[in-house]
């Protein structure tokens, strides 16, 4: 009898448990699982939102392989990645190290560096568009003070993507500074004390202790930055529209164009899946080289 009561009680508890997790399950099914499955279905279809999807087999893949604009967009995204990630890591570590010290108004500076992260991406982009403006932008004004002609920050094929990468670095750096700061503060202080007794310089401390022990944080930062860089959208969408001559067209912006401007939902889904595969490959390579554990 007692056993029966216990079973009933257990079932009741389980039901309550399910009730608690049901909002998350519903959310996951509706906004992650369903779109993922539907996108996979769309890869093999042509769909313009208004009429019924038509099965096209592997046509979308074949089109993708021959689509020079897609490959240009992928190349642009990789260029952005190669500029943005090193810049971001370099400045984040430097600033995090400064902010880890007992400097004047440290809390203020920590908050100040984090501020761009919480400002809307669209607002930041519009603000930087004004700074980059060829005629009235502050950057060209400063250059003119030292006798340099105006630079087409967003109109030059060579400068536009680096200019966007600099802006994106400024916008996201605060988040990575916090991660590095956490990593720095978790390094045991006695390691530095021992190294000092052994006569090591601060430079040697950095190379032999700080950097190796920041490796897990570095991997996290690199992986998160890679995801962020591959999802580059709002900056070229607002600032350049993908120009000049497609040099700032990112894969996500190209996917958006096909999905929501041309209503090629099937092809856009194919671009999305191709991008997911590229991201997976890049992250696996990063993990291979940065994922080694360091112990002292």
């Amino acid at each position: 009898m007692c056993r029966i009561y216990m079973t009933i009680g257990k079932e009741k508890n389980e039901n309550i448990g399910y009730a608690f997790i049901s909002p998350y399950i519903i959310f996951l099914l509706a906004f992650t699982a369903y779109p993922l499955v539907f996108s996979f279905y769309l890869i093999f279809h042509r769909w313009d939102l208004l009429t019924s999807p038509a099965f096209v087999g592997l046509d979308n893949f074949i089109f993708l392989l021959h689509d020079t604009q897609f490959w240009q967009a992928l190349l642009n995204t990789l260029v952005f990645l190669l500029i943005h990630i090193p810049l971001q890591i370099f400045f984040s570590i430097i600033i995090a190290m400064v902010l880890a010290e007992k400097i004047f108004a440290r809390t203020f500076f920590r908050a100040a560096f984090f501020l761009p992260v919480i400002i809307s991406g669209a607002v930041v982009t519009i603000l930087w568009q004004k700074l980059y403006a060829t005629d009235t932008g502050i950057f060209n004004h400063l250059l003119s003070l030292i006798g340099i002609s105006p630079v087409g920050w967003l109109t030059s094929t060579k400068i536009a993507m680096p200019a966007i990468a600099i802006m994106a670095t400024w916008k996201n750096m605060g988040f990575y500074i916090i991660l590095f700061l956490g990593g720095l503060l978790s390094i045991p202080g006695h390691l530095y004390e021992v190294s000092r007794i052994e006569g090591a310089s601060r430079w040697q401390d950095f190379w032999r202790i700080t950097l190796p022990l920041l490796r897990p944080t570095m991997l996290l930062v690199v992986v998160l930055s890679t995801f962020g860089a591959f999802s580059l959208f709002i900056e070229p969408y607002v600032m350049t529209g993908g120009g000049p001559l497609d040099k700032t067209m990112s894969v996500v912006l190209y996917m958006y164009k096909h999905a929501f401007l041309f209503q090629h939902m099937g092809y856009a889904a194919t671009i999305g899946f191709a991008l997911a595969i590229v991201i997976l490959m890049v992250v696996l390579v990063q993990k291979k080289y940065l994922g080694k554990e360091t112990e002292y």
Partner: protein
Amino acid sequence: MLSNLFTIFLLFSACNCQAVELLYWSSSNTEEIKLAKILVNEWNELHPDIHVKVQPIPATGSSEEILLSAIMSKTTPDICSNILPAIMGKFIESKAVVCLDRFKDSEKVIVDRTGTKLTDKFRSNNGKLCQIPWKSNPVMLAYNTEIFKSLKLKPPKTYSEFINVAKSINSDEDGNGILDHWAMKVSIKTVWYQRLFDFYPFYVAATGGKTLLEGDKAIFNNDGAIAAMKFFADGFKNRYFPMLGFSRDTFVDGKTAMSMVGPWIIEYYKRLNPNLKFDFAPIPVPDNHKGPVYTYGDPKNMVIFSTTKHPDEAWKFIKFLISKKADLKLLELTSQIPTRAHIADDAYFKSFFKKNPLLKKAARQADFVVPMDDSPHLIQILDIISRQFEAAAIYRVISPEKSMKMAAENVQNIYDYW
């Protein structure tokens, strides 16, 4: 007492049940919202049995994207007055709009107002009318009259005249090697609709009123298109058009002396710079051009969406919106031209045009306009042209001839593949 209250309640409920509710999406610019509100208030006062609620189209990007989303989610209003005729093909194919042959008087009402020739341009492939021609904004050459007067110039009619005028206008006042004044404002943005306000009107003018397609065939790889593209390439090369990413409208600031705009700009310029003095002229054409100068009409039409439960009432309301009285309000409040045949000579509008000579010029030009082709691939086609414009005119990495050849091939590929 209670029974009296009950009777009043019943009567009130009955009145509410009889009133038909219509939702009308207007364009979201300030002037058109004002116009829509005035017209709707007037209608509601006159027709207590058909209550119309007006709402600006909830557009964050282009209204076409919003309308497609609304059609897909079946949240379209009863009526919308911001329809680009070129995307009607998609709407008709998906049965999203009510075709007007279900209303007995529709053909007469529309042809009487718009004229047979222009009405036919808005018919769908099966000959049916599924949109109500409403207004157009013929794209013309706006020129700063003070700059032209001070330099003793006349608005250019041909490409050669344009070059001569441009040479006089371009100037580096402070001698620092950077130009301070340019001949004409041309956007260097590659967004698809931008070419409707530079390359396309020049193409239409140069070809004597041709559009881009004939059925499913791209027909724009022709002399007119190449001449127009060459015109822009030379303009950018000789710096008649600024390549700088300006943060303001250079025509309003007086930095450029010409701009390609529709008459709607009058109200906008009044707000930005009330002292700006300008006039309209037809789009310049190649030197050997003969015949009238056509341009892009930038038409916007009305539709009744098939989600409506009250198509007859919606049609009644639309007839009110395209009445002469409403058309006069459209002119007065928005500076846009009703799609009404020979409106410049219509006695009803005579006194208005007398007071507004700028709009009279636009109204005269409205008799020589073409719309954009109705194609399900319109945005992609304009995107292709825009990218070729960037390559051939702005950055000049390919020749105008090659750009037009490539654009036509790419457009044909769209039809073959998509």
